């Protein structure tokens, strides 16, 4: 077990280094970022000075080693655009994205699970299949398209909700979040709904297939024979048994939402890290791009790692890392 953990940890580090190298070189290959940021009215001498300021005149490998050394100390370079440490810029915007993901996942869970249970209990009958097909809509609709439609309807025509941005930030249980104010909730609702459609559809289908699978099992038949009502069986037994795989997948999906939120944040001008990465790529803000990718890969690797370990603990039948010979 310990060997497995160590092995996985080592793999994760290798992943991080490889990814950081790839990204670092890739961005450098696009060209000199100074020309993007510097005002066209400056003179050549100033441009040269700026290149020196940003350390862009040193050879590539030197720049990368410098970067690695600093990364070990937690310094991932200064954002060119924001004139602050890249890590700080990302961490500043992280709460906004986390808020969005939290509300989106909550909506997905609250709507998706009951719908999935209903769809599952209807099984192969028409309502069940109809709901299942409807869930396909949930992840077939292009996110940006849905977002704009939501804005058009709820923000411009009905004027119920604002069209973008984040609301006022208050304090909830000692944490600064916009979910502490009603203004904050008004702002987060539309983007959260937009973001929730995909996980909601996914959840619905997962629960549904889980329910169908369980419904054929012996213990359900025994329970029915004992005279328990369908609803009771559904909620007390089936649901609980579908929970483990559902929770695992949802864990992975939540992590994926961090990347998925890129489009939603752009449409709704939500000041999170998704919008930050799109802007940073456009402006060649190299430190932020690299820091962002590293953080995302770190989060993903951690989630994968945790999932693997959890799985192996829950289900000892799954052997770790070996083929089924």
């Amino acid at each position: 077990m310990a060997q497995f953990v160590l092995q996985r940890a080592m793999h994760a580090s290798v992943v991080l280094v490889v990814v950081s190298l790839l990204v670092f070189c890739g961005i450098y290959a696009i060209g000199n970022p100074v020309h993007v940021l510097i005002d066209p009215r400056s003179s050549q001498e100033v441009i040269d000075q700026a290149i020196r300021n940003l350390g862009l005149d040193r050879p590539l490998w030197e720049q990368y080693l410098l970067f690695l050394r600093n990364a070990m100390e937690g310094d991932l370079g200064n954002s060119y655009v924001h004139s602050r440490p890249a890590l700080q810029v990302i961490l500043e915007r992280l709460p906004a994205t986390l808020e969005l993901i939290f509300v989106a996942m909550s909506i997905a869970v609250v709507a998706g699970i009951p719908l999935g249970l209903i769809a599952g209990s209807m099984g192969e009958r028409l309502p069940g299949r109809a709901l299942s097909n409807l869930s396909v809509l949930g992840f077939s609709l292009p996110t940006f398209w849905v977002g704009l439609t939501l804005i058009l309807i709820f923000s411009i025509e009905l004027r119920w909700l604002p069209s973008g941005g984040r609301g006022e930030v208050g304090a909830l249980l000692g944490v600064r979040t916009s979910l502490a104010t009603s203004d904050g909730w008004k702002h987060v609702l539309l983007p959260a709904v937009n973001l929730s459609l995909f996980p909601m559809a996914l959840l619905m289908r997962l629960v549904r297939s889980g329910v169908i699978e369980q419904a054929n099992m012996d213990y359900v038949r025994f329970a029915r024979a004992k005279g328990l009502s369908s609803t009771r069986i559904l909620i007390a037994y089936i649901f609980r048994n579908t929970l483990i795989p559902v929770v695992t997948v949802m864990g992975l999906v939540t992590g994926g939402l961090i990347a998925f939120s890129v489009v939603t944040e752009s449409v709704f001008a939500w000041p999170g890290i998704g919008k930050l990465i799109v802007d940073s790529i456009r402006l060649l803000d190299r430190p932020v791009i690299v820091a962002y990718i590293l953080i995302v890969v770190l989060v993903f690797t951690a989630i994968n790692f945790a999932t693997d370990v959890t799985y192996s603990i829950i289900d000892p039948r799954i052997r770790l890392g070996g083929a089924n010979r």
Partner: protein
Amino acid sequence: MNWKVVFREYSRDITSLLALAALSVALLLAIFASVIAVQDPYDLTALNLMDSRLPPGSIGENGLYHLLGTDDQGRDVASAILYGLRISIGVAVASGAIGIVLGTAVGILAAYLGGWADAVLMRIVDIQLSFPAILNAMILLAVFGTGLLNIIIALVAVQWAYYARTARSAALVELGREYVEAAKSLSFGPMRIMFRHILPNCLGPLLVIAAVELANAIALEASLSFLGTGLRVTEPSLGLLIANGYSLMLSGHYWLTIYPGLALLILVASANLIADGLRRAFISRSAVAVDHG
């Protein structure tokens, strides 16, 4: 793999059949686009700027009937959708095909070889999968530039790992079965075992993944176009059409977004529904009769 049974199971749900029909129609439209369309929207000399932003049902200065209106460069939207279908489907199919071949080969190889080779290959797969698709694609395109070939490469990079993992899992199941031991003891070569025996039995899950990845590839290409890292702007794909129309929707030029959006929705939804149907069909017991042949 008893294909007749598969198809029968698949057709049980009318929605699956409708989806298959829709995708087939889309495919036909895409193939015959140049015949059906009233205008070649990619030919700059055929466009007229004075015909820009005409509402659906208008007749342009050169006498063309614009069923779904025109965009801001004078392109006929209906024609652009037809040609856009070509790109969306073409890119998705091409990247899917390459991805399947690459991924399946890696997956089956990893399962067969086991040990170190398996660990290394799967680690690479993990690295690939640990990366969110859209970021993966965006970074690749930022590095290598845009263009048709690069988009396909980016989409392959995003997809192959799914196929690899699925193929490996399916292959692992197969490798545990007796007939493989039997084949090995008969000194059948590894390639023969892999291709003639293991591969056919992995096809089921692979096909399902393929349908899902088809949908994802189409959607991902659209998102990439929307974020500005897509294809050539004078040869717009569906995603790019929507992106262009996005900025015009608020001023009342809805047709630039709604119609390409509907086309995209139908494409992606059909592919997903087909995947659903396939999944259902393959799970059904009578279909999964292992082919020992």
